[in-house]
């Protein structure tokens, strides 16, 4: 499944985003691709959210893939150590 992340995933948005991504969390049969082409900004709440997705996919033996990370977001992920967890696709 592919989820398109758009805009600024700050702490406020994370709460809403969590609700929006629930369908993803209910599926356990496939990889999840997060397209971040339009993702401008992510904060630690957003990171926590993505972490949950990762844990979820790993739990059911699938992968979580990040796509089209911009420079800033990539740096944040790197700092957070997420690049070791997620697979990157350009």
């Amino acid at each position, binding site marked *: 499944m592919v989820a398109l992340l758009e805009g600024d995933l*700050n702490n406020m948005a994370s709460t809403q985003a969590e609700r929006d991504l629930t369908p993803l969390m209910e599926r356990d049969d496939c990889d999840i691709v997060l397209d971040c082409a339009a993702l401008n*900004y992510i*904060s630690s709440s957003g990171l926590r959210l993505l*972490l949950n997705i990762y844990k979820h996919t790993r739990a059911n033996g699938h992968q979580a893939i990040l796509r089209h990370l911009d*420079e800033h977001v990539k740096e944040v992920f790197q*700092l*957070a*150590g997420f690049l070791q967890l997620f697979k990157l696709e350009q």
Partner: protein
Amino acid sequence: MLVLHYLCRKNSPNGMRNSLSARLTYRIMAVVMAMMVIITGVVYMTVKQYMLDEAKQRYESVLLDYHEELRRHLADIYVATRNNVHDIERDIDKPEEMFAHVERITKDNPTIVCCALLFEADYYKDREWGFIACARREADGSVRVVQIDSTYRRYYDEAWFRQPLENDADDWTEVYFESPQFAGSEEPRLLTTFLVPIHNAEGRPVALLCADLSLEWLRNEMMEDVEKVNKKFESGSLKHKSYSFIIDRHGHYIIHPDKSRMLTDTLASASMLEGERGATKAVIDGVESWLYYRTVKHVEWTIVIAVPKEVILQNGRMLNVIILAVMAVGLAVIYLFCRRQIKEVADPVAAQQAVMEREMNIAHNIQKAMLPSEFTPRPLTSPHAPLPSHLSPLLIHATQTPALDVGGDLYDYCLRDNRLYFCIGDVSGKGVPAALLMAVVQTMFHNEAKYATRASDIVAALNDIVSAEQNTTGFFVTMFVGILDLTTGLLDYCNAGHEIPELVRDGALVDIPAKPNIPVGALDDWAFEGQQQQLQQGDLLFLYTDGLSEAENVDQQLFGRKRVEELVLEYGHGTPQQLIDDMMQAVRQHDGSAVQNDDITMLAIRIEHLAWSVEPLEVRAVMEEMDHMTDYVVDAAQQAGMSELETKRLRLAIEEVAANIVNYSGATSIRMAAAVESGQLLVIIMDDGQPFDPTTADATDLSIPADQRPPGGMGIVLLRQMTDSQEYEYRSGRNVLTVRKKL
């Protein structure tokens, strides 16, 4: 004169009780005393001369008396002898008759102590070779008549005998001691003899009639009168008295108060006695004296009265003492009189002066209070967010040194809207009127600074006000007004006839082109033009009034604008306060002892940081306000010209901090401020929650795989990674976090 100068000083030191009346009295006394000294001096000189003249007259008349007396005695002898010549010549051939003649002559003339007839050699053929008939008055008064025996020397061959005989002329001899043949059993006398030739029937001079005058006798006769004179004119207490004596043509004393000196001693200064009579100063026997003298003809004797100087001047001295005493009394009277009179007049004046002095002091104090005296570097202004004090954009220092108690110079500055409004000015004139106008202008400047944005506008507004005032004072004010934008460094300025400030940048002077316009208050319809100049961090601006550049030393040399420039350059690396102190010291040194003639005012500004601040934000510490907070930061970053990427990073850091506060600190409100300083953007976050220092808190251990980390530490990592530096302070119950990011 030192006393006068002291009294004339304008300001007496505090604590001295020099009342005005006392000063006036002393001044008058000093003048009167000086006059008295002069008068005494003049009187003394005059009196001295008078004394000398009076003495001369006095002693000369005494001298005349002596002279006459002596001449009388000499004349007596002359007459006595001459009268007998005829009778003697009639009896010339009768040697025995000779004795009767000489006896008679001696008996009849008390002046003559011995009379003798001396004949030429072998005149009487049947008598002795040298025939002398002599009649001598002895000490007891009797007259002894005798023929001098032949043991007497051969007088008839000697010059003293032969000359008068050959010349057939009367003559007086030199003074000599009597021969023992004549003296007989008595002590030889000191004599002088009058010689008259005696002729025989043929008319040939053959003998000399000799009449002796005893100097001893003469001395006794004359000394009496001398004593009378002394008693009359001289006081008995003098060390040296006057006395008189007679000297012969060779200077030998022939009559002297001291008998032993007669004929044995000579007057040393005899050569000074020129002419027949006169007076001369001489040192005689070691005493400075005046010698009054007169010479007696025929015998060529000089009568001298020696008067010690002391004797002459003693009366004069007495007179001087009396005059001085009278003057001293007069002085005392004047003093008492003056004191009283002046007190009546001057004390009201003094009281008035004292009141004025007190008031001047108050004016001075008011003026001081009006000038901004707080020189601590000012933080960026905001009543809402007290910022850390190290964010000072400027260093300012100023001094005003008035020439009199209050000055006509002014300066002012204030901060508003991140702009420094400053001015410096010089009211024409000094003293209280200038100070009042100065106060008006300063207040008005402060008012105008609240609303104006252009320096020329402020100057124009001031001009309107002062021009209106001009009806009463006629003064004008030179001014320099500036508005320095502390965020951009742009200086907007307007000059009104004032000295153009000096600008130092990187150790060099930078020109400030400024149209001079005209002073404020000169014309009410002048259009003032201002200029602008871009200033930089580190620039030092130095403003001053002409009291500095036109300070004079005793040789009337000006301190000079060139010197001001040189010194600004030399001291311009220090703080404004150092620059002003050094400049003041330099001008004091230049002035030396000269009095400061004009007010000296200096204002120096150094730009430390060009900075601006955004109006702070205050929100409740709830998640709903997060956007508000991040928007604020993003806004500030964009204004500061931060790149998009860096803005995002900053936003992240701030969001993490804010989230932490909202979620974990228990704070009720968060306050934020952003500022640009030294090429960095600062964000300051304050909250009233529990004390928490993110700079020292444990960050997430990034070595632990992300999925195994405990939650919450991520924010701190992001904060530290996304920003360049962080500072934390807990102050007045607030967590204060300052975050910096390079631009």
